[in-house]
């Protein structure tokens, strides 16, 4: 059993933070235990269900398998950063409108996965959404509504983007915060 620990400094939802982490500690435990961010959740504990998904440097990761000691110098984004005051972001709003959840335990992880999908592919097809989310399990079976929510959010984001701009210029709130 590893007993060592070390200090890490990273950005978390736009703020500079520091933490002392065990060498065998996972990012999920750190977020929930030390920062009180409970949107990411442990379900399978082995990186196959997606309930713990957050972004590190703009990439979705399973935080239950991401070593906290690797965080030094990274930029971490969780679902808690998405809503601005009382305004939900377009993906969150689309999930509400489509009823894209039942118990909701998987929802933050699902939204974080969808966020990275729409960043890379602003107008995904059903098949692309299905493939992208195949590692995000919803035991309540809200998949049809999640699919609809992704399309709704894609349409909303498309409207928000200025016409005529190349696709690579996406709305800033979808980019990794820096």
């Amino acid at each position: 059993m590893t007993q060592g620990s070390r200090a890490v400094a990273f950005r978390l939802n736009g703020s500079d933070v520091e933490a002392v982490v065990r060498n065998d500690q996972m990012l999920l435990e750190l977020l929930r235990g030390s920062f009180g961010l409970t949107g990411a959740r442990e379900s399978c504990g082995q990186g196959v269900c997606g309930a713990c998904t957050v972004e590190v440097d703009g990439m979705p990761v399973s935080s239950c398998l991401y070593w906290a000691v690797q965080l030094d110098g990274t930029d971490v984004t969780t679902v808690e950063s998405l809503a601005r005051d009382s305004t939900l972001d377009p993906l969150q709003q689309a999930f509400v409108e489509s009823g894209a959840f039942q118990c909701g335990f998987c929802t933050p992880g699902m939204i974080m996965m969808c966020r990275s999908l729409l960043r890379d592919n602003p107008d995904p097809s059903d098949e692309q959404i299905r493939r992208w989310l195949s590692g995000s399990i919803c035991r309540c079976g809200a998949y049809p509504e999640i699919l609809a929510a992704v399309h709704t959010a894609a349409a909303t984001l498309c409207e928000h983007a200025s016409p005529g701009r190349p696709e690579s210029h996406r709305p800033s709130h979808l980019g990794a915060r820096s």
Partner: protein
Amino acid sequence: MTTEIGRSRPVLEARSKVDGTADYMVNHARNRMLHGVIVRSTQPHAALDEIDADSARASPSVHSVLTGADIAEVIKDPYYGPAFHDQPILALDKVRYVGEPVALVLAETQHAAAAAAPLVDVGYHALRAVFDEVAACGKDAPLVHEALRPGAAFADLRHLADVSGTNVALHTRLRHGDLDAAWAGAGQVFEHEYRTQQVAHVPLESHCAIAEFVAPDRLEVESGTQSPSFVRLELARLLGWRENQVRVTVPYLGGGFGAKLYMKLEALAAAAALIARRPVRVAITMDEQFFTISRHATTTRVRTRVDQEGRFRARSVDVCWNGGAYADIGPRVTQKSAFVAAGPYRIDAVAVDSRAVYTNRTPAGAMRGFGVPQMVFAHESHCDEIAAAVGVDPVGLRRRNLLAEGDTHATGTRLESAATIEVLETLAATMRWGGEYDRGPGPVRRGRGIALGLKAVVTPTTSAATVSLASDGSVTVYHGTVDMGQGSSTVMAVIAGQTLGVAPEDIAVLPPDTDSVPYDMGTLGSRSTFHMGNAILAAALDLKRQLIALAADATGRSPQGITSAAGRVGGLTFQELMTARYGGQAGTIVGHGSFTPQTAAPDSATCQSAAITPFWMVGGAGAEISVDTETGRITVDRIVCVADSGVALNPDAARRQLSGAVIMQLGMTLSEEMHYEDGQLTNLGLGQYKVATMRDAPPEIEVCLIQHPHPAGPYGAKGIGETGTFAVSPAVANALADATGVRLRSLPLTAEKVLQGLRCLGEGASS
């Protein structure tokens, strides 16, 4: 007055679910809390020898290690269970399945407890074990339990007598009509055996409970439970206390599906807290869910006499339910599903023999459908096998035999407010059953199938509720129904809001807390909208009566002359009424309601009853599938789900609940199976146990609601939580037979079994 009924709306807690703030049980903690990690049996059936916990105790941050003997010192009779008091809090004398809790490591952190748990060395003397439900009924089968003691909490389980010398915990017999005469007639007799597999509930949030003795005579438990009232009374019984000394609070649940009913971790957490004199939190992992509770595997033999006109004249159903090592609520599951095991058909005489059987596997209990999906798989596969044999169209055969409104069901109860025929006809129309059908290109064969199921709700059960009015006129609902994603809180707000003339979104629906909310039997069996809905309706009406009296006082009119509309009674707002009554911003008015439906207990020898259920659920499914005959893989292209829902109070949410049930049941149809080798579960955890993902959900899911108002339901509503599950598996199995000629009689319908079936057909054709 505008109606709140039947308008689709987002659930009240929608925002908290998308912004990450929803209050799930696993977010909870208490000061000075110890973390418990369970040491589990590695043997399926073994006498317990010494438990050496010295090195675990010496491990960093470990507080203590508890065994069954330690718990028996503080709780004299440490056995629990809703049907039988057969389950020890920690194993005593022997273990009965792999994964049974044997010891509890308590440490300052979850991490430290988990690290120390494998250091506990448990000695076992292996005993002969039995895993198969049919083998366990045999005379020479090893006994899982030497003797049994029924519990007393539920009225519908009072028939359970002390049992010993057998693994059959309960044998339910249903007898209807003149069996001898019905079997004696002409025609053909068909008999088939079907098997369903043991499956896991897998709510994404695993079980978690925290217990704290806040005073020597006062226990507080926080738990992700579906049955807070039962947990309270069972904890009080174990401690020898009164119910009012135990408080159970329930935050939001990350899924339940029946896995979180009755006692799960609460007694263990409470016993540990009692011994350690500190708050104790026990949270299990996803892998451990597979050692906690499951859905029964079954072996079912169905036999039917069909006359020359294609009518079912006699039917027998013989089913063994693999209940695993502890009864949990199995005896209720196996009894209630026996009521409807013969299907929604008009049959002269019916005999059902349903046996709840102990084996050395993970216990089986309630799961979404309460045994009915297993029975529907049997009678609906059987129905299509008969249709094929007598050369009648599957829809036509069902049309000929389906029970209609007013007919007498096999339980002796008349079918009322059950849209059997409409469900079948809607299914046939939506499936375009009479039309042309593309049979598929090349090695891909397409086929379609339908199935129908009927369920009686568990009864008699009680729900009670309180609706209160604050001094500013705002409304709060106190009730014990647990919202775990089904949207119950929203539906309760709709019922209270409609009754009081208040927008449902303006009503606070509090999470269950047994200190302040009245009794509820449990959030299970699709009972909440009907039972709790009626209780809340009654409570809101009680509140309204008081408001009318206040308005009469305030206006000097007679109560009969007072009208109410849109948040006003006698022209005054609720706040004005409160101010008039209490002379300022003060006071509370409380309405109370309780509901227990009028039913008649089934006869103990025949299960006959004049009123077996307060409402019927009817669910149909149609499947269109593609089968790759080179790989055996089934792809579900389209699913139609038709539900007799009563009035849907939140229609979109009802449709979502039904399609979610369909998708969950599809996983159990095509891939899910708890796989055992020598009593060892070999595929625990989501990495190996395959539930439906987004790629498994059919591209087309169509949900049809048949919305006839139920005369006894709140605003015409009844339950639908399980209806979507009933008919999915046999619809797919029937579609497989339609596509390929392969009839699979055991779930899941894996590619391997399909290929094997195709090979057998090929050999049959070439020989």
